């Protein structure tokens, strides 16, 4: 009798153990998902918790002749400056197909701030100059992708000055004058057929409270 109780207790523990293993690890294998993928799948819910907003970012057209505005989801942030950082961080990343990025690879956003006059300052890492291929046109595309990413989305900002590594700079690669803040240059922008008019979309900061 006692021996039978031991056997039942042992079987029960084994069953609970099996269940625990199945719950913790085994289910993944049973439904055919590898652990790396599972981890990947488990991340989006965390991202989805972050509110998104649609911003207009600027990339080279497929024929390389102009900038095209492309609407992309970026994280919603509270206030003008944090939102500007989110937009620029997205702008500095690679372009969605079929477009080409005009920002030198590896360029990071060091800082973004706005003066009382409404001029924005975009501080980029050294890669923006050291890895730039040169040429007036390529340089114009790089500079105005940044200028337009800020001014097309943040309506209160009319001018943008680019800094490199925290300092004022002459040019990125010997051509475009960066000593002063720059205004939009619509002659470099071609409207993307799929997205409709780019510059008449509601701007993000029209629905955002200005940052303190």
């Amino acid at each position: 009798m006692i021996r039978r109780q031991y056997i039942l207790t042992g079987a029960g523990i084994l069953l609970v153990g099996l269940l625990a293993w199945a719950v913790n690890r085994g289910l993944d294998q049973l439904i055919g998902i590898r652990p790396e993928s599972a981890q990947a799948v488990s991340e989006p819910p965390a991202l989805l918790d972050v509110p998104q907003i649609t911003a207009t970012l600027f990339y080279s057209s497929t024929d390389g002749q102009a900038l095209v505005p492309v609407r992309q989801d970026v994280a919603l942030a509270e206030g003008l400056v944090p939102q500007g950082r989110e937009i620029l961080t997205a702008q500095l990343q690679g372009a969605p197909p079929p477009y080409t990025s005009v920002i030198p690879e590896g360029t990071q956003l060091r800082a973004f701030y706005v003066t009382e006059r409404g001029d924005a300052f975009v501080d980029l890492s050294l890669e923006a100059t050291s890895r730039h291929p040169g040429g007036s046109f390529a340089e114009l595309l790089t500079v105005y992708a940044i200028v337009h990413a800020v001014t097309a989305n943040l309506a209160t900002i009319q001018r943008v000055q680019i800094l490199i590594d925290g300092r004022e700079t002459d040019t990125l690669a010997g051509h475009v004058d960066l000593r002063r803040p720059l205004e939009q240059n619509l002659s470099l922008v071609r409207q993307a057929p799929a997205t409709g008019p780019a510059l008449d979309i509601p701007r993000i900061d029209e629905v955002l409270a200005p940052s303190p």
Partner: protein
Amino acid sequence: MRGTALFSLAVLVFLLASLPQAQGTAPATPLTLLSREGRRAVPTIVLNGRELIALDEVAALFQATVREDTLAGGITITYGGQIIVISNDQPMASVSGRMIALPSPAARLGNRWFVPLELLPRALAPIYEVPIVLRVVSRLLIVGDLRVPRVTGRIDSAGPPTRATIEISPAAPVSVTTEAGRLLVRIDADALDVGLPPDGAGLIEQMRQDDQPTTVAIVLAGLAGAARAVPTEVDGITRITIGVAGVAAPSSTAAPTAIAPPAVAPSAGAITVPLQARSGALLRTIVIDPGHGGNDVGVRGARGTEEKAITLDVARRLRTLIETRLGIRVILTREDDRAVLLDERAALANNSKADLFLSLHMNAAPVATVAGAEVFYLRLDREGEDARRAAASEAVALPVLGGEGRTIDFIRWDLAQARHVDGSEVFAGILEEYLRARVVMSRRPRQDAPLRVLAGVDMPAASIEMAYLSNPEQEQLALSEDYQNSLAQAMYDAVVSFRAYLEGRGAP
């Protein structure tokens, strides 16, 4: 009651007085439209320094449909199913979705809309079935595939013997005949774009376009004797060298061929004549700026071609052309492979009191298929416009020793180009025109941009991107001697034409 009537009368007088200004003024020389159907004058107006054409004229000339879109706040031109949208408050238009910059917005005067003349080549040309070319200097609007070479002339030596040169670019077949005290140069072309000097010298009374539209007449003075004209073709230009001797003494048996015109234009300084002296007063020194240098190689092509080497090669070729043919002093911002700061380049031009600045570069794009040459002039933003206005309004007259006065201009040193932007735009237009005759242009042949090297230059200035080194075919092309010569020749032609523009305007 009486006061109200007086006030109304004053308002009426003011409105009537301001009417002529609101209507704009006619340009000094009317615009001429050249097409297969012939030539005709096109009415335009000048308003705030910009030349405008009425939209109803555009509709009639090009069989386009014009409509005012009150909802969108703009005007549309429809041609062949394609639409141009013109903003009435911004200096821009949209052509099938592509934004085009214009020198000024559309303007409404009375019940008519006027648009900048540049709308025709920039916005209408891309959707029109035949080319539309605007030649600013010669006041020509060319519609269709017409051969309209530029014909320029100069008196090289008053003599006697009097020597002169006529150049036809691009080259065209010519025949020269003599007739009752005139040399007639008939040019095989559809029309001529003539830039001849207004006055003659020595034994040549005048060089002018004949009643026959493709003929140039050289009118000889009464004392002229034998005359000879020798056409040659060099670098894509037909050059006719002319020699006119004085009347021979009665005992002389000199043959008409006694005059041997020089095979090439006389070298600088060999002969001093009034016309050359006058030209020199307006365009004495040109600074050519070969971009990059030293550690700054500029763009590097896939085969390793470096921008700094091509810019220096073309700059040297251009210098040779200008110095030997025009006798104008040319300074390069670098003579060899060394780094020169952008401010040093501008300072060299300013300190040399140069009359023209030309920066040479090679281009790059994120997509390898992008090709063609481009011309840039400085884009002024709000700050630049402020600097331009300040320069115009803040000149101060200071007394100097001897009781005379001297006017001092105030201009920001880092925006010295602001007051020359109009001249630079004209120069850029001329460069585009002559480059287009010899090399492939990009889809953006002429642009304004905030280019650092141009900002501090205190004279008309432009920058040329000669080809895309990011395009393997263009890289190969850029290395060829033919291409570099074509570029240099086109820039030389543009310098000659800009000099004619300055002479016609009477001041730099």
